[in-house]
């Protein structure tokens, strides 16, 4: 005979359909979204990993001042590498975006065509797909190159007439394809940049014949190399690249040298995809635990409601396991169906959403959707197990009570020995409310826990956008100078082994890098890296050596003064007296500095000391300088000698890019947490009213009005809601700041001071109160519908 209790399942489902639909939808959405995210992530990650071989990605690249001669090339290749030309020119839009244009690559760093085709003729161009997306360009649109300083380009949509004023003396390109360059999956303009900015910078390819038309003076002589024999591990790769750099720099003037493992444009994406997945999985587990928690309280509620029936069944001979199976069936069925549909949606709709998110952040090549066993385990098997374990534990603990206790509805386990005495001076109604609070304390604790979980999610979704916006304001407000120019110092010029070369380069440079701008103030700067010993990303640290009477850095410098920026201090928790250890980027050479103070600057990971101090530390002449602070633009130095310009735009690049790459997730988390928040308050408040149905009914019989009863039962819940919110905010703040710090440390080089918008607390509070108001109105209706015979009839 089939267990007749099973017939209840469908009735239970239809009887409480609203609740089950909400839970089901929440599960489908969370499982579907995370499944889609993981499937997309794995597929993209595989596409990324395979791209190294498929597109023959370089082992590194270097840029020389002059084109390599045949003999120089031969000399370098003797080091066990093959060198490939990868020349480019850079063109600027008048809206301050740049395009780095390569000749089509056929041997190394090959191009993946995403839409359209590769350029074949003069006047055709294929631009990076993401750059195109961010700038509203597509195939068949035209780009107009504006001659003059910077060779600005102006774009116009394909169906619009080209701006005649520009095209009259400009050059028009037709966009024939949208592409992904395998060595630019993250569009870093410079490897020194903290973050890439795919809306301001892009890459493109033109045909060989088109490239040959460019003025030789505009060409950057960039070369990619491949090792003849691949290094076996990271250490060997580093040694090989160090040797190679030394060999090249002795022969030619190096402007840039980036082995692949240090090339953010290549490696950033791979590292980032993994991190996102970890974050989403954690988010899924939080959601599943919340949903299991919802199921838990639902089951608990059912057991409370049916305890006498359960006790009778147990007394009649039903085993605990039979009853556990019965009460577990519904959560499990809902979870299984939700997991199934969630997975289907994960592989279809959500995968496409997430792939679009990846394509919105990275310039990845085409991909193939891969079956992902890990995603299935994480989104389906583990949630089912979590659900199974939580529901089993709750049921086991409740149903293990003796049949007699169940029949008598004595589920508390231990009975309160004595009633709490309340002062009679307290108004009767208030005492009544206090009694309700005491009587329902377990439900209220549950309400608090539920609100806490929902607030964590809400906080996550709501705090990040203002944090990023605030950061943009902070960095621009605390800029060291309106313009900071870092001069281009060839890598070889600071090679200790090559003092003659240093001297030559320096004398040569001196004439090229002086300015007559009265606002300009010289400084020396040196770039070192953090050791990454604490597991965070390796940071590039800029050390400024400044004049003693600086107009821009307001501090007294003596020979021992080492000030670190407030951002640096905040990220690593340094204070005056601590010793920081920094490393030469390409050498095994370490520097230790004792921090003497913190300089209020949130724009970057920076160290300040006197110019003399810095120059002597890194072995440069006392007068050596490598850049200018200036309150006005410097126009009399050739842009060729300006390596990096730190201005408002470059400082806010980090937050802008984070907004682009995390924006979608944030809004989804935001929406999801709001729904979850409403559902939790609704379910938990409903539970409290249901538990008190009999008392409410009795109060009605005694003659209490509807309003009085509502005031008695709704106000205590409102008090608990408000108290829970107020208590949970500081705890959540503490927890979330910790999570944000860990997350940001892993996600970005550089630093963003964590600032929490007080307005968001107000918004969260108001949202919670508004939600509760709606729920309270529903409760009020519910109380009205509790019949008076509830208290008198058999407790069914």
């Amino acid at each position, binding site marked *: 005979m089939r267990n007749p209790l099973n017939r209840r399942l469908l009735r239970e489902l239809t009887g409480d359909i609203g609740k089950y639909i909400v839970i089901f939808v929440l599960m489908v959405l969370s499982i579907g979204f995370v499944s889609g995210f993981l499937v997309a992530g794995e597929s993209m990650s595989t596409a990324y990993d395979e791209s190294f071989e498929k597109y023959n990605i370089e082992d590194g690249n270097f840029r020389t001042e002059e084109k390599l001669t045949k003999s120089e090339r031969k000399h370098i290749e003797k080091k066990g590498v093959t060198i490939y030309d990868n020349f480019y020119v850079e063109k600027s839009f008048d809206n301050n975006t740049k395009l780095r244009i390569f000749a089509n690559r056929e041997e190394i760093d090959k191009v993946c065509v995403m839409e359209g085709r590769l350029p074949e003729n003069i006047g055709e161009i294929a631009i990076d797909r993401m750059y195109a997306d961010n700038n509203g360009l597509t195939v068949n649109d035209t780009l107009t190159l504006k001659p003059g300083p910077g060779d600005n380009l102006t774009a116009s949509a394909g169906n619009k007439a080209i701006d005649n004023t520009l095209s009259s003396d400009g050059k028009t390109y037709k966009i024939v394809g949208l592409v992904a360059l395998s060595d630019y999956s993250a569009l870093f303009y410079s490897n020194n940049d903290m973050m890439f900015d795919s809306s301001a910078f892009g890459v493109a390819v033109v045909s060989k014949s088109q490239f040959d038309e460019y003025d030789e003076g505009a060409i950057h002589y960039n070369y990619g190399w491949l090792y003849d024999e691949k290094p076996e591990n990271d250490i060997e790769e580093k040694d090989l690249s160090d040797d190679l750099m030394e060999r090249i720099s002795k022969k030619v003037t190096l402007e840039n040298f980036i082995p692949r493992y240090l090339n953010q444009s290549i490696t950033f994406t791979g590292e980032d995809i993994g991190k996102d997945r970890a974050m989403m999985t954690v988010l899924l587990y939080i959601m599943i635990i919340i949903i299991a928690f919802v199921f838990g309280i639902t089951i608990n509620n059912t057991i409370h409601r049916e305890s006498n029936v359960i*006790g009778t069944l147990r007394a009649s001979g039903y085993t605990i396991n039979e009853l556990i199976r019965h009460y577990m069936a519904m959560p499990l069925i809902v979870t299984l169906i939700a997991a199934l549909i969630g997975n289907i949606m994960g592989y279809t709709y959500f995968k496409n959403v997430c792939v679009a998110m990846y394509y919105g952040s990275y310039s990845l090549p085409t991909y193939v959707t891969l079956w992902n066993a890990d995603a299935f385990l994480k989104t389906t098997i583990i949630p089912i197990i979590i659900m199974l374990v939580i529901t089993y534990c709750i049921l086991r603990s409740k149903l293990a009570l003796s049949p007699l206790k169940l029949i008598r509805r004595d589920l508390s386990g231990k009975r309160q020995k004595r009633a709490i005495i309340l002062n009679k001076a307290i108004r009767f109604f208030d005492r009544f409310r206090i009694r309700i609070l005491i009587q329902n304390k377990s439900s209220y604790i549950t309400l608090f826990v539920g609100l806490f979980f929902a607030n964590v999610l809400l906080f996550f979704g709501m705090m990040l956008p203002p944090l990023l916006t605030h950061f943009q304001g902070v960095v621009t407000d605390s800029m060291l100078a309106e313009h900071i120019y870092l001069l281009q110092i060839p890598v070889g010029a600071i090679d200790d082994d090559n003092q003659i070369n240093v001297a030559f380069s320096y004398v040569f440079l001196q004439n090229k890098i002086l300015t007559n701008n009265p606002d300009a103030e010289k400084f020396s700067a040196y770039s070192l890296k953090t050791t990454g010993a604490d597991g965070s990303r390796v940071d590039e640290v800029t050390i400024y050596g400044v004049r003693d009477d600086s107009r821009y850095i307001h501090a007294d410098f003596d020979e021992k003064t080492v000030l670190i920026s407030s951002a640096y201090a905040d990220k690593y928790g340094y204070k005056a007296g601590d010793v920081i250890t920094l490393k030469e980027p390409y050498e095994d050479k370490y520097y230790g500095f004792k921090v003497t103070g913190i300089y209020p600057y949130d724009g970057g990971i920076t160290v300040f000391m006197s110019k003399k101090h810095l120059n002597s530390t890194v072995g440069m002449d006392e007068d050596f300088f490598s850049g200018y602070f200036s309150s006005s633009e410097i126009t009399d130095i050739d842009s060729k000698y300006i390596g990096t310009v730190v201005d408002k735009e470059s400082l806010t690049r980090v937050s802008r890019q984070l907004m682009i790459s995390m924006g979608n997730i944030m809004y989804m988390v935001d929406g999801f947490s709001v729904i979850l928040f409403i559902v939790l308050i609704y379910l938990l408040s409903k539970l409290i009213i249901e538990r008190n149905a009999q008392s409410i009914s009795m109060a009605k019989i005694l003659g209490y009005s509807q309003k009085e009863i509502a005031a008695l039962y709704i106000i205590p819940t409102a008090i608990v809601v408000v108290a829970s919110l107020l208590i949970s905010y500081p705890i959540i703040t503490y927890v979330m700041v910790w999570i944000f710090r860990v997350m940001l440390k892993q996600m970005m080089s550089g630093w963003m001071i964590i600032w929490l918008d007080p307005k968001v607390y107000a918004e969260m509070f108001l949202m919670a109160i508004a939600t509760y108001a709606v729920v309270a109105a529903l409760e009020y209706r519910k109380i009205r519908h509790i019949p008076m015979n509830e208290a008198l009839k058999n407790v069914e």
Partner: protein
Amino acid sequence: MQLELQNIKKSYGEGGSRVEVLKDISLSVEKGEFVVLLGPSGSGKSTLLNIIGGIDTADSGKIIIREKSMSDMDEKALTAYRREHLGYIFQMYNLIPNLTVRENIEVGAYLSKNPLNIDEIIETLGLTEHQNKEPSQLSGGQQQRCAIGRAIVKNPDILLCDEPTGALDYNTSKEILSLIEEVNRKYGNTVIMVTHNDAIKNMADFVVKLRDGVIRKSYRNETKQTAAELDW
């Protein structure tokens, strides 16, 4: 001998608030007997019934059922014992709200390897026309009939009834008592009924009067009244 209680003691609470509910209770019940445990509130009759039913435990003493000692049984064996040998009827009917009358009776049948015919029981209980209704659509008496059906459908050796008429009016109570009497006669189950209604003793084969946890009097009726003949 179907059931034998030897020196059963039970107390609740600790120290000064300790209350002895059962003080050295011993009695024997024969198979098929209709036993009434009679006594006022607090006399210990329900506690004794619960101990017999294996849903409460004695502090000391022995319960032997069909020559097996209950004190040797663990939780699992006790559940099996209740499943195979006992049927329970409470003052509150404790029916499953979203199952019909018939399905509620099936809940009992499911526990037995040889359940009685459900249709026959429904007919015996006079619930044929209500069999597809849910408990909330029934009167108290009808709900108690359904609870009786759920208890007897598995044809238990012993039917334990804890104040089965406590929540019912005079006429309905008599109907329910008649039904239990009929079940006892028809199926030969031993019935142990707890009540504080003195009149019910007259329909019992064996009467045990309890007060303050002690058997004040126990006797077997020479002549019995039918439930219909009872008056109070």
